[in-house]
């Protein structure tokens, strides 16, 4: 089956400093993919680059196919149709994406006119349907309100309504709940999941929170220093992480119940993109690192059905395990 979106060897550099160093992602129709990793690992830049949203000085290379068509470097007119149409994006700070001096009706109507070619009464009805859909009570009346008249959670709901205006096939949600309180975060995540199921929409959920991603996605990709280091179905990644960085992230999370144990912190910090170590970028923080790790950057290699990992050490031990299992 042809993937909905297929990113291959995506590279981005700012002022000659590489920050994305060859990212590969394939996303099927209707699939929910989680993208986790420490801040600065390149989660946002991956999708900003794919959608042509980076500032001009960013140097972008690689390939991004949407239904088999190249969209990287596509003409502006074509990209405008993709963005907000086939692919919509919502961000951590929804307030900054809304215009404070325009009513919600006006902003939703503009999005609908742009991407759906609707007009007059149909626009009004559709705007109201969308607000209803995202769970804004009293939608008909609230359409004439301004952004500041809504709470933080409601503003994020409105952003989701705006994103849905173009009937997208893919929603990129970049840290959509990071600024929200826990109980409101739970509401928004549930809303996203139910909408996704109803509309058969694919979703990329970007988050620094492993739990958020694990609970809401079919598959998870872990990023570190501009590369994907492990990809796996959610439940497998958390039950049985293979890459030492993925293991480290899970070990660093304090448990909510059961016995308390000392956290297994990952020593050191994320490398500065301008001073990337040779070989595996995680090696300087890795307890398992050995000489070969410093020689060449490991590539993402399949280790099992639907699973791949970029680690010389894990790969070797995994292969050994698989051979034993096969015999």
């Amino acid at each position, binding site marked *: 089956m042809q993937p909905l979106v297929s990113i291959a060897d995506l590279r981005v550099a700012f002022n000659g400093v590489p920050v994305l160093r060859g990212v590969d992602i394939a996303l099927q129709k209707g699939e929910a993919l989680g993208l986790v990793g420490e801040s600065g690992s390149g989660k946002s830049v991956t999708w900003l680059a794919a959608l042509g949203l980076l500032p001009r000085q960013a140097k972008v290379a690689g390939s991004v196919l949407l239904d088999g068509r190249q969209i990287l470097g596509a003409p502006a007119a074509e990209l405008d149709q993709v963005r907000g149409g086939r692919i919509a994006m919502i961000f951590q700070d929804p307030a900054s994406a809304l215009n404070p001096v325009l009513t919600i009706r006006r902003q939703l109507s503009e999005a609908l006119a742009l991407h759906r070619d609707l007009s007059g009464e149909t626009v009004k009805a559709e705007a109201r349907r969308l607000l209803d859909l995202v769970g804004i009570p009293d939608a008909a009346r609230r359409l004439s309100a301004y952004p500041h008249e809504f709470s933080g959670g409601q503003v994020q709901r409105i952003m989701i309504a705006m994103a849905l205006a173009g009937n997208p096939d893919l929603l990129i949600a970049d840290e959509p709940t990071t600024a929200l309180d826990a*109980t409101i975060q739970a509401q928004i995540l549930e809303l996203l999941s139910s909408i996704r199921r109803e509309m058969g929409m694919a979703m990329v959920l970007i988050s620094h929170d492993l*739990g958020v991603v694990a*609970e809401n996605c079919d598959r998870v990709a872990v990023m570190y220093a501009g590369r994907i280091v492990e990809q796996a179905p959610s439940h497998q990644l958390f039950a049985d992480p293979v890459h030492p960085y993925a293991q480290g992230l899970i070990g660093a*999370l*304090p448990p909510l119940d059961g016995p308390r144990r000392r956290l297994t912190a990952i020593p050191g910090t994320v490398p500065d993109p301008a001073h990337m170590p040779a070989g595996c970028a995680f090696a300087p923080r890795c307890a398992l690192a050995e000489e070969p790790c410093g020689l060449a950057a490991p590539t993402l290699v399949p280790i099992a059905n639907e699973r791949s990992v970029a680690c010389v050490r894990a790969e070797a031990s995994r292969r050994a395990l698989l051979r034993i299992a096969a015999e």
Partner: protein
Amino acid sequence: MNAPLVAVSAISRSYSMRSGMFGRAAAVHAVDGVSLTIPRGETLGLVGESGSGKSTTGRIVLGLEPPDHGEVRFDGKPMAAPGTATWRAQRARMQMIFQDPLGALDRRLPVGTQIREPLDIHGLGTPGEREERVRELLRDVELTPAHGARYPGALSGGQRQRIVLAQALATKPDFLVCDEPVSALDVSIQAQVVNLLCDLQAQLSLTLLFISHDLRVVRQISNVVAVMYLGRIVEIGLADDLFAQPEHPYTQALVSASPAPGRRSAGRIVLAGDPPNPAARPNGCAFHPRCPRAIARCAQEVPVLSAVGGNRQVACHLVTGAATRDAA
């Protein structure tokens, strides 16, 4: 039992807030009748969503602002009036750490100089001894003297938070209020700082008030945890079993909302609505409009924090009402 280092009894604090340019001033009850005790060498965790009154409680406990009602006692004595000699002596024994280390540090000074500042201010030791103490503090927070020569901008977020911690420890305080100290850090770095705090607390027998919205981090570090909702404590109990067996419907919702790897969201309690405006606090139990189990009584009567067995106290008619029935 030894006397608690910190004893907070029934403190309240309200602010007047004007909504809109012509709106009437309304009172925001930021903290409303909060009582806590922290035994020497232990950590009390305070959790709750934003606006629940955690930071205000922290500021009052430190004597940075007075409560409207109630009292804070430190080491058996009431907090002295700000500005007095007794107050300064008490204050030297307590310190605080905030979420944003960059905001707490001066970007124009090397961080080592900033760690030394409290020693200079309180005139502790000779210049040589102060330098030695700075080196010792840097070691305590697992940094090197070389880090001390750097400016805040040349350190990572986790390193800056260590500097702030070293600065707070300079005067050898007995008591530390930490307000969201690791909330801005990535998980892997957060774990380093949490481990460091646990180690230092044990080594230096520190008493801690640890404020965070993150249930996991609070549990990891605390002996006892209190859950706040709109200025009141709704549940308090031992960190070991509070989140495993939450009694208050709000605590249950918080636990349920806390994402857990390996669990799918099925069966989650999703609360309806937004947290209410603190300036328009609902009657009765402030949580009742969002509570999935509220009964008529909840809208009328404020539930009192009451013991429900073990080391748990809960402010909920459903829980304590049932407990009295069972006892009868």
